[in-house]
Each structure stands twice: as C-alpha cells, then as structure tokens.
C-alpha cells in the first residue's frame, strides 16, 4: 500500500466526489466527512512513514499511462508539509459547511475534487501532470464561488477564473519550451537542469505571471478579496489555507531551482512588489468594515512576507517562507472559520454589527484571540516563527527590504487588534449580537485542532522544519551559484569582541 499511497490519497476523495453526486444531501455530508477523514488518516501514515533525512524524493510512483507525459508522483519534505496542511484542513471545511443547504451533494463533490487536485499539485513529479492538476482546480473553485457565494458571486467567480487562467496559459508555453529544450518532463531532473541565462529570464517571467496571480502579489491581488468575500466559509478556508500556497510552492519548486540566475536577476521586482504589498494592503486592511475583506487583505500582506523570504536566497529566508505559508494556512483558515461562526448566527460580515462578544461568547473570544495573536506574530504562536525567520533571512539580502517588510508586522498588529477590539470588546451595542450563543460542540471540534497546531508550530517548530531541512539545504546549494551579494555584510560572530554582534539589534532598535 505504501508504494501507492499518493495515488490512494488522490483516489479516495475522487471516489467520494462521485459518490456525493449520486446520493442525497444528508448522506453526501457523511460521505464527504468520511472521505476526508480517510485522507487525513492516510496523511498521518504518510508523515509517520516519511524518512526524515532519507532519500530526497519518497513514495515515488510512475505509470506511463499517457502519451507525452506520465502519471508520476513523489514528494519531498516541502510537498509533504503542504499535503499535510491540505488533508488537515479538509475535514474541518466539511464540518464548517453545515450551513450550506443548497445542492449539498454537488457542493461536497466540488470540495472533494479540490482536495484531490491540491494533493495532486503537491505530489506531481511530471511537469504536465502538475499543470493539469494546477489548472483543473479552477473548475470546482469557479463553481463553489459562483453557486454558493454571496451577492456579487458572479463577478467574483469570473474575476477569479480569468485572472488565474491568463496567468497560467503563459506558464504552459514556457513549459512546452522547457521540455523541448531539456527533453524531459521529469520535475526533479528539470530542477537540476541549467537553462541558458537569457532564456531563463523569459521562462521566469512566464512562471511569475502564473504564480504571482495565484500567490497573490500586488497588483494582481484584486481577485482575492472579491473571491474571499463571496465564497462560502469553507471556500474561503480552502482558498486561503491551501490554494494560495500553490503560488508559493510554485516559486520554491519551479522558479527558484529551475531558473536561479533569472530569480536573482528579478529578485528586485519581487522585493519591490512585496514591499508595496506589505504596506499598501496592510493600510487597506486597516480601513475595512467587512471582516472577510480585512482578513483577505491581511493574507496578501502575509504572502508578501513569504515572497521576500523566498527571494532572500538563504536558508533562513526559505525556511521562514515555508513556515509562514503553513502558519498562514492554519491561522487565516481559522480566522475565516471564526468569521463564519458569527456570520452563521447574524448573517452579516459588518464589523460594526458586532461588539462585546467576549461577554456572551467567552469561548469564541478565546479562540479568536489566539488566532488574532498568531496572525500578529506573537511569540509561542506559529506566526512568530515564520515571520522571524523570513525577516532575518531577508535582512541578510537587503536591510531596506527587511525594514519595510518588518513594518508589516506592526501594521498587522494594528489592524488585527483593532478588529478584535471592535468585535470582542467594548459595549454590546446590538441586542441581536449580544444574544448569540457561544460555540457549539461542532464548532469547538473545528477550531480546537487548529489551535493546537498553531501552538505546536509556535512552541516546537522543529517538527515541521525537520522534514524540509534537507530539501531547503539542497535548494540553497542550488541557489548559491546565483546568490546576489547582500548589503548586510554579516560576519561570523567573535565571542570576545561583541561589538559587531549587536549590529542587527541596533538596526532593529532604530525604528
């Protein structure tokens, strides 16, 4: 079974999706929950059987089913972590969909299909198989936003579909060129292939067009707030939790190792866009009156920290970017769930309609507090580990970028704490909001595992870093040939002469 565990993890939700289409709504909920729980169990087996420090690519399988490409799966530590994130969030999403009453079977089928495709994206080892999985996610997501979304769902679904499609088709042409040049569709081989530097630049731009939209980076992020606001709660969780990670995964799996020189050449573009994104979207988040929009804009800001970490070209930056991605997947997913909890009760996302919820919903307020703090990056939560690593990594590359990206943490504290104050503290302005009951058992079951994971990642991040360490070291070695010189001029510590050692601290203290 272990030889085909990845195929099995793809097959279970696919079969579940077909089953959901054939049965009535009530049964479909059960089928979907069972299918996602089986995948979660398989995911746990996958993690426990993953040989940390062993072969770089594990659980490989290959079946030459098609002409031109093959059914080739396999994972490294990076893919493992993202698959774990997907299978962990899926059962929670199914539980969060209790308020869906329209076309339940199709809804569950769309989600299960999404799960299969997400696992497929992270596990694919064939370039074209990756592309098919990557693009196929558009169809279920389009339907999820369009059928079960809010008022402006149609506009949001079009925007989501066409933006991401335009980005991806250019990547397809780049892939065709690469395969023609390198003569293979095997991703691990392509990761070692040295493309001519001039060609790398064009290829990098084509891949960037796709991943920047998926990520999303400023200024092509505008589909995200629309899609988030209009998607149902579970759709937002999957969108923020896993779909956004496809962009970051694309950078770390394709752009960086396949085009290291071009990545170094264009790093300033990424830095510039990310710096703008951190400041601008944080400020936009500050003035939102819609909770989901606020969290959506905060996602863009957090993803900008991921991109600066990735293009820092060092181990800390890469590790930090990965941890921010995992942490953001958990935290923003949880925040959307928190919004969903009160949205289900009052059917509004207007922040002003709530207030003083810590009085009538103390358990809810506690969880919401934890996730707010994790989003801000409080030590002992997952957010701190990732942001600290990413910023310390980018500091070696450019202190200015670190400075501007660092303001994101402060602004993040600003808008998240402001949000929390308006929702949970203060007076109970509205009688209907004051009468809302506290978390139900189902909602507790949804939020508690995420809270545990957030604390685990914050207190002992080694569990999550260990599987990725070897892959990130290999990537770092691959990038070393093109690494641009940083402006930090770090020198090895000299224990007796402590003066130089304080330089980073002084810099931090300057603002």
């Amino acid at each position: 079974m272990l030889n085909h565990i990845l195929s099995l993890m793809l097959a279970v939700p696919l079969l579940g999706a077909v089953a959901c289409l054939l049965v009535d709504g009530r049964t479909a909920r059960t089928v979907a929950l069972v299918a996602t729980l089986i995948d979660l169990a398989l995911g746990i087996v996958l993690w426990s059987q993953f040989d940390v420090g062993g072969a770089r690519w594990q659980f490989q399988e290959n079946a030459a089913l098609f002409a031109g490409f093959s059914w080739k799966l396999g994972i490294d530590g990076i893919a493992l972590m993202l698959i774990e994130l997907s299978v962990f969030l899926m059962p929670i999403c199914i539980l969060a969909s209790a308020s869906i009453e329209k076309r339940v079977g199709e809804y569950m089928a769309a989600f299960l299909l999404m799960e299969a495709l997400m696992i497929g994206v992270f596990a694919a080892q064939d370039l074209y198989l990756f592309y098919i999985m990557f693009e196929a996610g558009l169809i279920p997501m389009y339907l999820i936003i369009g059928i079960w979304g809010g008022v402006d769902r149609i506009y949001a679904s079009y925007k989501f579909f066409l933006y991401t499609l335009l980005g991806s088709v250019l990547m397809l042409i780049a892939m065709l060129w690469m395969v023609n040049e390198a003569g293979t569709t095997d991703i691990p081989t392509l990761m070692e292939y040295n493309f001519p530097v001039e060609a790398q630049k064009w290829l990098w731009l084509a891949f960037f067009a796709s991943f920047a939209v998926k990520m999303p980076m400023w200024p092509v992020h505008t589909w995200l707030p629309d899609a988030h606001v209009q998607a149902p709660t579970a759709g937002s969780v999957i969108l923020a939790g896993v779909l956004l990670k496809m962009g970051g995964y694309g950078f770390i799996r394709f752009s960086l190792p396949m085009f290291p020189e071009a990545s170094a050449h264009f790093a300033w573009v990424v830095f510039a866009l990310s710096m703008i994104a951190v400041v601008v979207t944080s400020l936009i988040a500050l003035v939102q009156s819609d909770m989901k929009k606020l969290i959506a804009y905060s996602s863009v800001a957090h993803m900008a920290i991921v991109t600066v970490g990735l293009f820092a070209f060092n181990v800390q930056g890469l590790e930090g970017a990965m941890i921010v991605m995992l942490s953001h997947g958990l935290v923003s997913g949880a925040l959307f769930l928190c919004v969903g909890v009160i949205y289900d009760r009052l059917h509004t996302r207007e922040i002003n309609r709530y207030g003083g919820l810590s009085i009538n919903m103390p358990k809810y307020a506690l969880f919401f507090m934890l996730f707010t703090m994790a989003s801000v990056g409080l030590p002992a939560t997952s957010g701190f580990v990732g942001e600290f690593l990413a910023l310390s990594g980018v500091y070696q590359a450019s202190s200015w970028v670190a400075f501007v990206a660092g303001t994101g943490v402060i602004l993040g504290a600003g808008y998240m704490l402001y949000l929390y104050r308006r929702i949970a503290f203060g007076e109970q302005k509205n009688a209907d909001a004051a009468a809302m009951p506290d978390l139900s058992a189902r909602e507790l079951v949804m939020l508690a595992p995420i809270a545990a994971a957030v604390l685990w990642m914050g207190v002992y991040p080694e569990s999550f870093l260990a599987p990725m360490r070897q892959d990130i070291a290999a990537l770092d070695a691959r990038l070393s040939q093109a690494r641009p010189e940083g402006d930090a001029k770090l020198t090895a510590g000299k224990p007796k002469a402590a003066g130089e050692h304080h330089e980073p601290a002084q810099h931090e203290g300057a603002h």
Partner: protein
Amino acid sequence: MDWSQSLRLVAPEELLSVAGLVLLLGSAWAKTARDARAITWLAVATLAVAAAIVAPWAFGGVRGAETLAFYGLFTADAFASYAKLLIYAAAGASLLIAPAFFERVRGYRPEYPVLVLFATAGMGIMVSATNLLTLYIGLELNSLAAYVLAAFLKDDDRSAEAGLKYFVLGALASGILLFGISLTYGFTGTTSFAGISAALQSGVSTGALFGVTFVLAGLAFKISAVPFHMWTPDVYEGAPTPVTTFFASAPKVAALALTMRVALEAFGSQVSAWQQIVIFAALASIVVGALGAIGQQNIKRLLAYSSINNVGFLLIGLAAATPAGAAGMLVYLAIYVAMTIGGFVAVLMLKDENGNQVEQIADIAGLSSHRKVLAACLAMVMFSLAGIPPLFGFWGKFVVFQAAVEAGLLPLAVIGIAASVIGAFYYLKVVKVMYFDEPAMKAVRHSDWIHQALLAASALFISPAGYLLTKCLGGLAAAAAAALFHAA
C-alpha cells in the same frame, strides 16, 4: 497499376455511392416515418462497414505507392483513412440524432440519410485526393449535398435562408478555388500534387503564388477560417440542428484534412509561401471567433463562433508545417469532433414542455437545478472547448501548441494561447447561466435514448478518462502524419 487494385482502394467510396443509390431507390417506396427510420439505420450500417474497411489502413499506417489508385489521382493512405474514420463517425452520429428531431416537425424524409451518404462519399474523395481535379470533384459532391441538407426543412424560413446563403457563398468559394487551381496549373503545368511539389522545388513565381493564395482562400471558406467565416453563424443557426451537427463535424474534418494535404504535399516544398497566410488565418480565427461569440444570444450561433475559434487553434498545427504539427491537428480533430457532437446533441436535448427546441441561452438559465446530468455534460463540453484541463479538450490545444513551440513559432503560440483566455469568457458564460442563474424552467422535456447515449459517449470521451486514449490516438495520428510527409 491494375484496375482491380484501384477499385479495391476506393472500396469505401464505391460502397457509399452504391448504398446511396440503392437507398435512394428504396426511399421512393418509403411511405411512413418507420420506413425512413429503417433507411437511416441502413445508412448507419453502411457507414459502419465503410469504417471497417478503412480501419485496417489507418491502424496499419499504410503509405507510399501501393496506396495510389487510378494513376496517382487518389490515395488510400493512413492519413486519408484516419480522416475517413472521423468523418464516418461524425456522419453516423448526425444520422442517429436526426429522426427524433425531424419527426417532431413532421419533416423527416428518407432523403436525409441518402444525402448524408453522398456527402460522406464526397468527403472521402476530398481527403484521398492527390490531384487538384479529384479534389474539386470531391468538394463539389460534398457541397451540393450539403446545400440541400441546409435547406432540408423547406417550410422553415430560416432553413431555406441558410441553404440559399450557403449555396451562393459556397459557389463563390468554388469559383475562387477553381481560379486558384487554374493559375496553379498554368504556372506549374500539372494538377497532380506530387508534380506541383516538384515544379515548385526551384522557387515560386508570382503567378504560382497567386494560385497558392486563391486555392487556400477557397479552402479557408470551407473550413470557415477568418476572413472567410461570415456564412458560418447564419448557416449554423438556420440549418436544422442535426444538419448543423453534421456541418460542424464531418465536413470540417474533411476540409481541414484536405487543406493539410494541399499545403503540406502540393505546396510542401514552399512552406514559406503559405505559412504567413495560415498564421494570419489562425490568429484572426481565434480572436474573431472569441470576440464574436461574446454577444451571442443563440446557443447554435455561439457554437458556430466556437467552431471558428477552434479552427484557428487547429491551423496553428498547420502553421508549424511539421509531422508533429500535422499529428497534433489530427488528434485535435478527433477531440473536436467529440466535443462538437456532444455540444450539439446537448442542444438537441433542450426541449420545452411542448417538445419545441430551446435555443436561446437565456432560456437554459438554472438548467442544473432540474436537468442535472444534461447541464453537467454541457458544462463539460464548454470547459473542454475552452481547453481547461483536466478535460480532454485541453489535450488537443496542448499538442498543437507543443508542435508550434517545437517548430520555433513562439510568438504565434504566445498570442494564440493568450487569446484563448478571451474564448474562455463566453464558454464560462454558458456555465454561469446554467449553474448560477435562477431557473427559467424552460428546457424540461426529456429526449430519446439515442441522444442520451450519444451524449454519454461523447462526455466520457472528453472527460479526464479520455487521457487514457492519448497513446492510441497519438500513435494513429503520428502514423497518419508520417504517411502525409512520406508522399511530400
């Protein structure tokens, strides 16, 4: 070269012509709808036998001198056989869906299957032609039958109008084509493809260039490539839906295969003479097909623009002028036929409570709430036409773009694929209307089992399961393309 050998090679065309004549005679005695149905089934059986004759040639990858009949006027190589398989399948499907449609308007007559058989025989000659005159005979045999088919519902104004428009514009295109043929003959001294290729080896004179241009313009009309596409939406909308299905599938395959053979065999020694024309037609078809479809209210017109759009993508494979490009086109054609049949059969199945056809896009609003399977199949066809993976339509686009990139036509590939996003917009619109809008509850009536079976078959073909066929399909197409380039 003996006559028995030649007669053996044209066996499918002989069979179709003789069967057409016999069934025409039989239809003189056909009184009731039941008789007409029986004749339809006989015609389908004839097509199946013809397919059984050509299948070994397609699978065997036959090519070279032993496939030439009648002193090099006609060839039954793997390329022609592959195209014929697609044509017979498409023609068979258009026959099967017809009775249920025409009986509703009391317009079914046994002449329908007979005309389809004659048109199919003409298409067989088109794809097998290795001489400009054989080409013209095949083309006219197909066209004359097609004009009558377009006007088959003689009491319906739209159908009569479609037939007249098709005839007038088709006659004009035939004239352009003949003019090109005469110029080509005048400047090369031969009408045989091999002879033209040899004569052009040393260079293209201005006169011969005019000949190439006019021949391609005439053929562009038949494949409805921009700028010769104007007739397509009107004819597709006006003709009875089974006839539209036929027009959009079988003659498209035949005309495209013919264009491939003319371009790659007859003018194959001077690729640069026609490559620009094909690149222009490809990009213009993609863009015009996509932009034109956006404002359409009638689903048949929308599918007409979609077919113009798809022809543009197919021509990208021709522009590459490589065996990989030709093989890519053939794979795409097979998928295109399945998508077209699936799309039009789904349209045929849209009926209101009185059994009348529903053709307005607004009328299928909310279809997914009461006709789940039908809406899902139509949505699959739309996503597949848009080329969104994991549906099989993606593979067709993928192989032609792959060939274009391999041939170094990178700008063409980039512009073409970027324009495909415009096309995605209107395909999405249909899905949006069916899934996101409030139900209009217009299309409620169920259709007969043949429609359902055909829709299920084409939906299965364009589903992700279709990728399992890529090896078989790719092998057949590669053998067919090799036959084409062997002769060149």
